[in-house]
């Protein structure tokens, strides 16, 4: 059996909005193993993104535990885990508009303290791996949506993380570009042995994953 990367036990997440409390997650139990691709589907506002943020250490649960590689994430330096082991891809790309494609990818290597030359080399290799080897000097505004998402994927993978978390990575793309991006992610998942968790409301995207989960009203259900 493959190693367990994530083990979530009774994870609850509440947000306070004024006087009311929003229960985003209502006791999620989940195990994700090494090399798995889990797609999480569900309607908007039912906790998909919140779950992903908790998996990535971007947010902390109100109660319950999240173990990453056998250690409670709350006891680890979340910033260090994020910098080394987890790559993120967002729906809105979140590229820095004033930096070129190569510089945007290099940004992910800053916390690792690598030399400038190595950062540049790895960024160029990362962009070449997503088919943008000829767009190194282009600003995000000079790239199409699909190309921007490729840059974001290169940025997520340039540090060679163990886990890739993708939050609606095709949400802002047209159908043709969506298929290209999903094909690219699938290829990278296979070739690099990544553990991938992908959140989407698109059934066509979710259907590509070997494992499928459904978030409904803050609860996780396994789908076969």
């Amino acid at each position, binding site marked *: 059996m493959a190693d367990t990367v994530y083990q979530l036990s009774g994870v609850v997440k509440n947000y306070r909005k004024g006087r009311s409390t929003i229960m985003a997650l209502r006791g999620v139990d989940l195990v994700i193993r090494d090399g798995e691709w889990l797609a999480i589907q569900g309607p908007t506002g039912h906790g998909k993104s919140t779950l992903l943020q908790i998996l990535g*250490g*971007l*947010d902390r649960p109100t109660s319950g535990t999240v173990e990453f590689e056998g250690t409670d994430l709350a006891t680890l330096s979340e910033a260090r885990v994020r910098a080394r082991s987890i790559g993120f891809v967002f729906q809105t790309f*979140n590229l820095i508009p*004033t*930096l070129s494609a190569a510089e945007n990818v*290099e940004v992910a290597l800053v916390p690792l303290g690598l030399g400038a030359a190595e950062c540049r080399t790895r960024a160029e290799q990362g962009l070449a791996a997503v088919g943008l080897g000829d767009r190194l000097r282009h600003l995000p505004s000079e790239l199409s949506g699909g190309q921007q998402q490729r840059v974001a994927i290169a940025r997520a993978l340039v540090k060679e993380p163990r886990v890739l978390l993708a939050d609606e990575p095709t949400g802002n793309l047209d159908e043709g570009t969506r298929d290209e991006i999903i094909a690219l992610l699938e290829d990278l998942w296979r070739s690099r042995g990544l553990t991938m968790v992908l959140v989407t409301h698109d059934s066509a995207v979710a259907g590509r994953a070997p494992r499928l989960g459904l978030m409904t009203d803050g609860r996780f259900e396994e789908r076969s």
Partner: protein
Amino acid sequence: MFFTYLWRELRRRMRQAVLIALGLALGVGLVITVTAASDGVKDSQATVLHTLYGVGTDITVTQPPAKGSGGGTSFGFRQQINSVRSGQIAAGTKASNAASVTGPGRVLGSGAAQALAGAGHTVSVTLTAPVTLSVIVLAVLLALAGGLVAGSFGGWRAARLRPAAALARVA
């Protein structure tokens, strides 16, 4: 990478950058103006009060003798007054070579007399801005310190945001 990002952001936000630069220039100008005004006031005080600088122990006040009393209180100054009236300089007095008698029983030093005589005149003092290297350095340092404090506060607040909340803001 940090400085590349900083420079590109400043170029991208040219209008804001120019506005802040103008604010810094205004700060520099204010420091120079305040320094100039301070120096000017000091100079004008020196000019106006110059004639009083000689006033010291040469101001002597005596009480005129009351009728029938056989003489007023002497205060021990009679000798000095007499000396002054006769054009002699009292031993131990300073700054004054001559004395002016302004009335019976009142003796003032020459400096005080000049000051009183000049009190009715207007003294014009020109305010000049002392743009020296030290003033400019001080002004730039003050402006930079203000900018750093303001920037650090914003950065500190941003750094305390939860990553999820920060991402929600840029989305």
